[in-house]
């Protein structure tokens, strides 16, 4: 029973000091949760602390691998706009990669 931080984490540090079990640590390329220490905050708080402050949708998964903060739940940005934005970002990124290899 443990939460997990995945690669969309932007290393903002917000979750780290909140964990009642010191389960979160700074690592490369992003913060990590020590699965042995994480209790999902049960017994300490009503809500998992890391997932309650994390500003990045989808960066934290529960023990079933489900996004605790799904897309659109925090920013209120409609899904299709986000998808468009992501596609544009990816295109820019790809163009930059192509430029480099050219």
């Amino acid at each position, binding site marked *: 029973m443990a939460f997990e931080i995945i690669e969309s984490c932007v*290393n*903002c540090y*917000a979750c780290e000091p909140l964990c009642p079990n010191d389960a979160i640590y700074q690592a490369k390329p992003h913060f990590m949760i020590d699965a042995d220490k994480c209790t999902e905050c049960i017994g300490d708080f009503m809500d998992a602390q890391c997932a309650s*402050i994390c*500003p*990045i949708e989808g960066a934290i998964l529960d023990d079933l691998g489900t996004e605790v903060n799904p897309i659109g739940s925090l*920013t209120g940005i409609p899904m299709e706009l986000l998808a468009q*934005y992501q596609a544009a*970002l990816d295109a820019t990124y790809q163009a930059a990669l192509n430029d480099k290899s050219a």
Partner: protein
Amino acid sequence: MDLPVLNTSEAAESGGGCDSHSCGSTGDQLGHLPEHIREKVHNHPCYSEQAHHYFARMHVAVAPACNIQCHYCNRKYDCSNESRPGVVSEVLTPEQAVKKVMAVAANIPQMTVLGIAGPGDPLANPERTFETFRELTEKAPDIKLCVSTNGLALPESIDELCKHNIDHVTITINCVDPDVGGKIYPWIFWKNKRIMGREGAAILIEQQQKGLEMLAERGILVKVNSVMIPGVNDAHLAEVSRVVKAKGAFLHNVMPLIAEPEHGTFYGLMGQPGPTHEELQKLQDACSGDMNMMRHCRQCRADAVGMLGEDRGQEFTLDKIEDMEIDYPAAMVKRAEVHARIEAELKIKDQANAAKAELAKAGWVAIQGMKQDAPKLRPVLMAVATKGGGVINEHFGHASEFLIYEASGHDVRFIGHRKTLPYCDGGDTCGDGESALDVTIRELSGCEVVLCSKVGYEPWGPLEAAGITPNGEHAMEAIEDAVLAVYEEMRVAGKLEAKPLMQQKAA
């Protein structure tokens, strides 16, 4: 002894022509403040329009975490080409930050203020923020400290703030009404819970107001920043201004929303427009009242280094400061000398201003050659290219921003600044088929004159065609004197009774 015969208007000219850099309100913008506050802010580049030409500030990015979400912020965004609050490329540890501050202070003696503003919220990172302040208070006591916060954690941080003797706090207050707040803040983190929408906004507002009152009670200067979001809080900000002034804020600074789709923010993606220059100016005028606004605010990045509007951060990256040997006690001596020199210069200017004000009071005409018909003249906006020092000393093509002044029948006042792309960097950098010159011309809309130390042949035609007269005749002159001189030329040429060129064309 032969005296030349003077007619009244010449006498008035010589009376008004004293060497002062500020006429009326701009030079005197701190005049209404009590002495102890003036003492604190007179050499603070963020608070004093005059000081920002001479002194520099820096921010260090030690505070990555945030406890709220704003619709104009995207925590994923990180780009060193962007110059917006909350945007920063390198998060520093307190030790690195202290080293960087001392390196900058030793190399840029004009740096008087160190601020922590992000990239998250400083008070949501209390250990990192206060560790930095503690070290700096001890090692570099000649640097003023300030902090900029969303206010949520302010009440609980006040005791700690007072300990570090931080005398300036900026609170970003966008609303005092939770219904408005619900449209700006999607969530806050409060007492171990994420609280969404209006409910969260209500708590945030309460904490901000409480924090403001507590700071005012303890004699700590509070500046309030507001982001103007058209259709969301623009009509509400006059009320915000009234409330925060009543609670003791000494400055209220209204800034424009910056929202572009490529920022990936809620407002950016939803197509929320920012205010036009005119809308912003109108609101700033409505809010200013007897409290002067920070028209010169540049909305610096959270890791900005240098004079307002410039960023020398690249000279002080981590690997570069690693190699710097800093003898701070020696630097402090040099810094004190530089500060004393600038202070002396500012003092002379103050005296000149005071003398001028005396003249005006005594019934002399305060402004060069402008007589009773002056108030009937229409005001004119002029753009100025400057590298600092209060003089016109930047080439048109090198300017990445212009200061905007308004000359009118009774004074010259500083209105704000407009950023652009340096024309000489070439037109192909800005995409969308719009050249750098097009961007500049668009940014300078409403201005009738652009003053710079030099302007090339090429931009001349397009500028004139856009109704903006380029003028390189006042290089190295004090800005406000030059603006006034050009205004006077326009008056003599009869241009001030007529409508501006562009409006004539449109009509």
